[in-house]
């Protein structure tokens, strides 16, 4: 599944990463705890989180996570956008809860990390 399809399925809003809309996503993970995210060793992971801060972007940078969905209507700040752009990370805002967002993507075929 590519990013464009992800955005459509969850009814999200692509905030940053327009040029990477064809990036393929294979697996998903949902957490507000960055140390949990940092233990993953899969690639092409999409992260769903309610934690909207710079550390979420840094965590994605270190873990080679290509796309972050901010659920629960959390807003992406300018600093987050700048850091994401610098590291080619796609950012999506979404009004639904983490549970609903994850459920929709799971149903559409995104695999869990474990």
């Amino acid at each position: 599944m590519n990013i464009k399809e992800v955005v459509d399925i969850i009814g999200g809003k692509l905030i940053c990463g327009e040029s990477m809309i064809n990036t393929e996503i294979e697996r998903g993970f949902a957490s507000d705890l960055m140390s949990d995210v940092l233990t993953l060793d899969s690639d092409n992971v999409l992260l769903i989180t309610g934690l909207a801060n710079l550390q979420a972007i840094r965590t994605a940078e270190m873990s080679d996570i290509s796309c972050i969905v901010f659920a629960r209507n959390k807003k992406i700040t300018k600093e987050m956008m700048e850091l994401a752009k610098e590291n080619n990370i796609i950012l999506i805002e979404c009004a639904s809860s983490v549970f609903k967002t994850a459920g929709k993507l799971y149903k559409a075929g995104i695999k869990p990390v474990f």
Partner: protein
Amino acid sequence: MHFEYNIEGGDFSKAGFASSQLKKVLKQLITDHKVVKRTVVALYEAEVNVVAHAYLGVVIIDIDTDKIKIQINDKGPGIEDISKAMEEGFSTASEKVREMGFGAGMGLSNIKNNSDDFKITSEVGVGTKLEIIAYLKTI
């Protein structure tokens, strides 16, 4: 190659700066992206620990043909029981640290899992020292 970075305790906005710089350097040098990821994840967790639990720290990185050696030395409260601190799930993180997305008690064990060699020493009331080594096959 030799690099040094300072870390300020409590300043989450800059946590990850050293790891980010190291990642840029390693991507140029190493083709095995798993090694790059393991090493920067280990350093990032260590940086966040200084920000979350100590007062100030320094990161010293030495990249050689056969290994990457990273030392993270901080001035801080130190760790009384290291084996307990290494346990997954053990955390004394403050509310502020948890709001930042940390405090799962996973960091130290994750650093160990992501390094080929890992040493930790600490003195209560003085500070903590970590040494992380990643061995390289070819560079």
